[in-house]
């Protein structure tokens, strides 16, 4: 499993290496951005992007790729990112959704695919967004069974992302880091570390983000998500529609000080800023991956 991931990344990397400008981060994927139709022009023009992520549900198996993606996928590594598989749900993952993710990975020559530790529907109702899973032993067992079912039908490794949530389930039996660590170890899934979600949950529920980083198996990171948010009514909302706060960039540096992740990717989903602003934000993220952190790396793994 691991060799496939690294082989995939190396394969892309050798193609890219010659033209790779010095401004990308040290990981094999570098700094990337989530592909959105509204950003297609910006992404096509931006020459030092390391990789892009494509929302899996936005692509149809029987239709051509959206304009710009076809050309881009010959040039850049692309990671299908599922948002509706509902791996944390009570039901087994829908085989058709897994098959779509698998077909997309093949079509894009993707080194891996990613999904969430979340559920999006229950009892025939669609919540319309990622909801957190109760952190109980019982829910963890169901989640592990679901992840294994999905993995069995995927041609590439699966990376799992922890989500941001405004609410918490009552009576958790495990803290989030322990829940994730056990999930990753038992499924051999990779980790999609989202420092914006980490920051949002620490703001809204308390907890030390650095202790969270120290408790996670950082060697399993496939890549890191970065995004902006805003405070409303006393809560921090992970909007993906505002600039990345300095505190989130600091967490990028903290991750890199512990272990260089293969890649770091900006998610921007709405209220798209002028291109110069977005370019500057990507440059700031690149700089954050290199900023030296004064405290020593503590991850013992």
């Amino acid at each position: 499993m691991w060799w496939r991931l690294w082989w995939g990344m190396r394969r892309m990397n050798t193609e890219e290496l010659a033209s790779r400008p010095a401004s990308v981060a040290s990981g094999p994927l570098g700094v990337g951005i989530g592909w959105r139709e509204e950003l297609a022009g910006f992404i096509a023009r931006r020459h030092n992007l390391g990789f892009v992520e494509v929302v899996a549900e936005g692509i149809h198996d029987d239709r051509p790729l959206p304009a710009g993606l076809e050309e881009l996928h010959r040039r850049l590594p692309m990671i299908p990112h599922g948002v509706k598989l509902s791996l944390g749900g009570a039901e087994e993952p829908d085989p058709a959704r897994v098959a779509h993710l698998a077909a997309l990975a093949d079509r894009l020559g993707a080194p891996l695919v990613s999904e969430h530790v979340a559920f999006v529907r229950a009892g025939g109702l669609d919540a319309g967004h990622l909801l957190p899973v109760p952190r109980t032993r019982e829910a963890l067992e169901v989640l592990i069974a679901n992840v294994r079912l999905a993995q069995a039908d995927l041609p590439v490794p699966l990376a799992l992302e922890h989500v941001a949530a405004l609410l918490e389930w009552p009576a958790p039996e495990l803290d989030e880091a322990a829940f994730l660590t056990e999930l990753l170890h038992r499924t051999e899934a990779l980790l999609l570390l989202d420092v914006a979600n980490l920051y949002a949950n620490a703001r809204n529920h308390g907890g030390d983000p650095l202790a969270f980083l120290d408790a996670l198996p950082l060697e399993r990171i496939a890549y890191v998500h970065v995004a902006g948010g805003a405070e409303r009514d006393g809560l921090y909302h992970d909007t993906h529609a505002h600039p990345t706060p300095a505190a989130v960039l600091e967490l990028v540096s903290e991750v890199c000080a512990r272990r260089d992740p293969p890649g770091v990717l900006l998610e921007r989903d709405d209220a798209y800023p002028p291109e110069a602003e977005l370019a500057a934000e990507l440059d700031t993220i690149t700089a954050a991956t290199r900023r030296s952190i004064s405290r020593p790396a503590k991850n013992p793994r």
Partner: protein
Amino acid sequence: MSGDVTARARLATAQQALVRALVDGGPVPAGFDPDRVQATSTALARKRARAVANTWPALARTLGAGFTAQFLAYAADRPPPAGGPLADGLAFARALMRQERLPGDVRVELLLAQARLSNRSIRLAGTFAGPPCRLVMTVRAPLLGERWTTVPSRRHN
């Protein structure tokens, strides 16, 4: 079924209760912080509102600053439909239409969406829009797909 069947059943019950509270006006399940459930419910509805506004630009433009508040009121006890923002906006527009008269460009948007979502293989519909006053007709037919045409009209809008 992979995994413990009773574990799945218990999880299903708990998750259903939470989703009902979030998108269907259901009661807050025991043990949850009601403020946080409300905040999550509002955040979900706002996300829906943004998606509807992007899919229904004339509708969003017409309602202007009041769009989000009106949509949130509409969505409070109506779960998001399976058809996504297109169907969501359509149902919202129909609800508005029942309450008041929507301007012409929104009616055209509504008509096109109805043609696209129609189950019938052949469908013809029309509405007056303007200014300048015109009759807009949509047709949906096999091979033809969805088309629309405009006929100038003297009818006052």
